[in-house]
């Protein structure tokens, strides 16, 4: 399916969605964080979309906002989109978990929590996956400082 057709269908799923195809090979959809879970579940269940395969979930620090990028694929139609969600709350960033839609998210969300400190609502067991439980800070954030372990050129 063409990106324009995808955009038309997805546009009907929620409000205030921002689309862009610039600077990327995929159709990018910026979803307001309140609608993340409903839109994602519709992306999967809609019979024309069927985005059932989340092949890459990336945590992101845009400097001002934190967020998550979902690369989605449909194993049936082979079309792909990128869903982005942002939150401006850097102190206590919270997003909805999508692990009930794509089970792989359970693990990726642990990784994102570990490195970006984004908390996911309804996640079965949010814990430090890579780092020790008493680790302070979230290393992949841009404002993370660790003078002992980081060499900055």
């Amino acid at each position, binding site marked *: 399916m063409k990106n324009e057709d995808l955009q038309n269908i997805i546009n009907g799923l929620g409000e205030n969605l921002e689309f862009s195809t*610039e*600077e*990327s*090979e*995929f159709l*990018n959809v910026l979803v307001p964080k309140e609608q993340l879970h409903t839109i994602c579940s519709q992306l999967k269940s809609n019979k024309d979309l069927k985005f*059932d*395969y*989340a*092949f*890459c979930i*990336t*945590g*992101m*620090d845009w400097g001002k906002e934190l967020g998550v*990028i979902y*690369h989605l694929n449909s*194993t049936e139609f*082979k079309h792909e989109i*990128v869903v982005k969600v942002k939150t401006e709350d850097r102190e206590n960033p919270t997003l909805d978990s999508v692990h009930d839609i*794509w*089970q*792989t998210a*359970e*693990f*990726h969300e642990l*990784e994102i929590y570990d490195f970006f400190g984004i908390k996911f609502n309804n996640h079965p067991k949010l814990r430090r*996956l*890579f*780092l*020790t439980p008493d680790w302070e800070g979230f*290393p*992949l954030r841009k404002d993370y400082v660790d003078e002992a372990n*980081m*060499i*900055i*050129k």
Partner: protein
Amino acid sequence: MADQELETKIKTEEYFVNMGPQHPAAHGVLRLLLTIDGEIIKNVEPDLGYIHRSIEKMCERDSYQQIVHLTDRMDYLSSNINNEAVCLAVEKALEIEVSDRVKVIRTIISELTRIASHCLWWGVMGMDLGALTTYFYAFRDREYINDIFEETCGARLTMNYNAPGGLMFDIHPNFVKRTKDFIKHFKTKIPEYDRLVTGNVIFQKRTKGVGVLTKEDAISYGVTGPVARGSGLSSDVRKLHPYSAYDRVDFKEALLTAGDTFARYEVRIMELWESISIIEQLIDNIPEGEIKATTKAVIKLPKGEYYQRVEAARGELGVYINSTGTKNPYRVKFRSPGFSNLSVLNHITKGSKIADLVATMASFDFVIPDIDR
């Protein structure tokens, strides 16, 4: 009914076992927190990070040429394929068209890497199931490939042969002959693998119907590579999104539907044959051409987001680069095959025995630095 009665009368108690980080079946430093009732697994909780080097953070401070060298250390068994992924991403961003020669050589070396990786997997799989001899058979054959690599680029494992825009240097004059010799040798050895392990009754009993992953679960868990193909999920990046010279070779995607450990085993053995066939199609007519397209000394990617995927030995390796137009990437994410594949482990081993967990893990072919990055 009688069994149920018995189960309610006999009180059993669950207990925790720390499998790893130092454990023979952990293939490195994977730590699994097992909840066990007798021999039966109730829950598997992976605890990672014992070899985490934060490559993604390191990438943010390095130049694009340097990033290539970091990727070697992720999945060290398919190091060349990882290098290729980053190079392809950078080339895609800069819109550099590499010469046919580079494409063909990259494909051949990647397939040799895949064979070497699958050889090691085969040896370790046998070892995890208790057949120790397989390890040495596999290493005998893997040694040929490592020698070829050593001759061409000086390194045996972490090769650093690719660079953005092409290759570091041309292939060694002996490369073609030695690769052909190896193919000839290896064709007689895969049947030997089959005779030693595949047909063995104990091996089949241990693997058939063990760790069954359905296609629906494979999709939902984002599984890729031989694990997905064993469950009937077509996920071969070489077919779906051809890169390098894969669009000009004729090969079949190994696809089985059983979804158990044996199917994953068979898929990998089939992939060995396919890799041989790909190399045979390319090795005789490597086109002449430039070995490296000219790139600037300081590579700056245009502002934007780039996603490049390749088929590593364990599955789809995705490289996500977010560039703001400077000489360093703003964010690099490696979508490693092992990490997604690991997420399904708890789901498919629940309720099976400890020995099944080991067999299933062996068929997943984890490389821990690939999971930890």
